[in-house]
């Protein structure tokens, strides 16, 4: 059976797209390599931006200006205007479907101030904004009877002779069988690629850039891949995020000598660079929230206390929290126009895997949850519309015969352990394609990645069973990560000047 709209990824972006496509009258099928509620969207804590002015005066225009400024000239003003103007609607819709946003004493949706915003603008749901939005979207999909298939892994996108989309080749992780899912249009909503930094990333282990790599393989254009946002406060050992609200509420950053060395509320890229400099100079860096007091910490930063205790064995009420800056969000992705259409006919993209040109070289906190709702809807609507109106979608489904990576993989020799290489790549990228970039080091990294790509046939999987083979899935993810790494490093080499998160040093 052919679906009108096939959606790959069931995070905030994918589920919103599914609801919009269904609402437009299309038949919809959603595939995810996890379960919808396990998508990384659940990890967002800080909030979602909308200039509601519920706490103090604010305007859509200010939201636009803040976003453009942070983007360092790399955003498309029209797209930013659209996203910021739609923000109040997006919040209203989420409220209507049941998201439990925190409220002010007078019953309005509460808002807090995140970095780079001229007013308290981020709507939040206690400490769990992403979780509550994602679960509510999932429940809405249950209500609308949207078809969702869990634990289905996108291997490759399928195209017709004319290059337009016709579906996806999927590995059913549970059975180990290949499945062809044919569709008139496809929406990619498969998330970002920060896991190329391996353990130097706050991200879910699923953020391996699969969708971006698959899209690039069929000729979709990528844009801004060099722009990787580093978050100043990842826990030192595990890279788990300590929310920006810790600094927002008055937390300090200290070095081993106990000195403050940067304005803690400066933009993320500046603070990350300052932390990096300290670490390169041999200092350790700590987040200090002791002065906020136990009562305040337990009321406002309970998750932070729990995670610091669990992963660093320190109690923030009386100890310093060891931190480092780590990869957190990837601004780059599949290039799309204002209708979320990629350069491949019938292929749409939204969420962190797409580049809608709204974050430019640096994303503002709270703008990603906003983007996944606003452009998730746009992508779903556009994909549905495409299936109704575009002749290409009505052509016979003569998919080109795909070259299947799984078939090739059977001859791989397994002499080199890819898990070792995966952490090696993370280390390499953190040091050489990280917070500060030098041309000489980028070239070294590029060489290394090319070598690893050539060595792929010497890697492969040890586990040969069919059922739920995560060794296999992780190897395919690693292959995608290498493709993404290549795109990141060559984009970084092309951009000679510093710009936002891409910071170039001499040498």
């Amino acid at each position, binding site marked *: 059976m052919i679906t009108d709209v096939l959606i790959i990824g069931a995070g905030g972006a994918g589920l919103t797209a599914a609801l919009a496509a269904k609402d437009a009258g299309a038949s919809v099928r959603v595939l995810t390599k*996890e*379960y919808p*509620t*396990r*998508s*990384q969207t*659940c*990890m967002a804590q800080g909030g979602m931006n909308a200039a509601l002015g519920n706490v103090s005066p604010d305007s859509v225009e200010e939201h636009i200006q803040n976003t453009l400024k942070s983007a360092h000239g790399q955003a498309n003003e029209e797209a930013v205007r659209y996203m910021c103007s739609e923000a109040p609607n997006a919040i209203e819709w989420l*409220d*209507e*479907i*049941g998201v*439990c*946003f*925190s*409220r*002010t*004493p*007078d*019953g309005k949706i509460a808002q807090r101030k995140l970095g780079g915003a001229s007013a308290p603008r981020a709507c939040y*749901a*206690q400490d*769990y904004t992403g*979780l*509550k939005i994602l*679960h509510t979207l999932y*429940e*809405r999909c*249950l*209500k609308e009877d949207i078809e969702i298939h*869990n634990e289905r892994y996108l291997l490759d996108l399928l195209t017709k002779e004319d290059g337009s989309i016709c579906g996806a080749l999927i590995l059913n992780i*549970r059975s180990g069988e290949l499945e062809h899912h044919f569709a008139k249009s496809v929406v990619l909503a498969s998330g970002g690629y920060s896991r190329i930094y391996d353990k130097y990333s706050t991200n*879910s*282990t*699923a953020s391996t850039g699969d969708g971006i790599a698959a899209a690039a393989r069929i000729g979709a254009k990528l844009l801004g891949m060099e722009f990787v946002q580093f978050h100043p406060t990842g826990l030192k050992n*595990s890279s*788990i*995020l300590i929310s920006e609200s810790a600094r927002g509420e008055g937390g300090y950053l200290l070095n081993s000598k106990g000195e403050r060395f940067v304005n803690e509320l400066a933009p993320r890229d500046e603070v990350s660079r300052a932390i990096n400099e300290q670490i390169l100079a041999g200092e350790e860096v700590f987040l200090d929230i002791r002065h906020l007091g136990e009562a305040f910490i337990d009321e406002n930063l309970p*998750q932070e206390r*729990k*995670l610091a205790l*669990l*992963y660093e*064995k320190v109690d923030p009420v009386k100890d310093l929290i060891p931190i480092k800056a780590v990869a957190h969000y990837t601004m780059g992705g599949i290039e799309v126009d204002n209708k979320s259409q990629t350069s491949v006919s019938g292929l749409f993209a939204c969420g962190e895997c797409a580049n809608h040109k709204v974050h430019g070289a640096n994303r503002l906190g709270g703008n990603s949850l906003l983007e996944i709702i606003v452009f998730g809807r746009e992508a779903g609507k556009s994909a549905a519309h495409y299936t109704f109106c575009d002749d290409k979608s009505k052509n016979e489904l003569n998919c080109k015969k795909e070259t299947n990576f799984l078939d090739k993989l059977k001859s791989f020799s397994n002499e080199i352990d890819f*898990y*070792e290489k995966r952490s090696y790549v993370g280390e390499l990228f953190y040091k050489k394609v990280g917070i500060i970039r030098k041309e000489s080091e980028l070239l070294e990294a590029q060489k290394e990645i090319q070598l690893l790509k050539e060595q792929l046939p010497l890697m492969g*999987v*040890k*586990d040969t*069973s069919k*059922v*739920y*083979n*995560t*060794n296999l899935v992780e190897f395919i993810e690693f292959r995608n990560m290498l493709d993404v790494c290549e795109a990141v490093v060559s984009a970084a080499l092309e951009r000679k000047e510093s710009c936002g998160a891409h910071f170039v040093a001499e040498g």
Partner: protein
Amino acid sequence: MKISIKRDFDFIEYNVDMQDATLLEVIETIKTEQDSSLAYSSGCRSSVCGSCSMRVNEKEVLACAYKVQDGDVVEPLKNVEVIRDLVVNMDKALATKKRAKTWLQTYNKEAKLTHEDEKTNALQSDCILCGSCYSACPVYAVNEAFLGPFALTGVWKYVSDKREAAPEEKIETIQKNGVWDCTLCNECTLVCPQNISSKADIEKLRMRSSMAGYSDPNFAQNFGGGLSF
């Protein structure tokens, strides 16, 4: 340090040299360094995605929030089909949400939520769908069709939400295989990593059911049985 993990056919003991590590870190190390065939699920590493729930020494935990002890015995969740090793199929468990209709059915435009209203179901909406409660619930041994703890907590979330204009529909939905089938044993509460008490939510739903004129069918039966000897 030794831990043993339930594999497809038997327990296998692994020896790891790690201090003060979470169970997830230990399992990851085993997978990448010792035995790449070990299957498990994970995602966030920070207790919000609900992927890594499993049982340690017969109690449900999140692997990313549990510190390993020497001699720990690790198994997959119960009451769900084991796909492989520690990976279970959650489809059937998640389908309870659909059967229980845990969503906002009819939006009440007039409802104005206050700061206080926010608190009435903030806890219930903290659920991460880890399935720990579902695994711990003894009812599944006798009734596969029981809606179960997290779904019923989800129902309470919407029944107690002022924005829901038709809470009676939800109350009606949970009469069969729902609130009255729970034994109030509290096992679900003891294992919930989010400190949610489905038992307490079910009690509240029973109260609302009684107020709406429904009664405990078991009670009626027992009562009937008692008189007819």
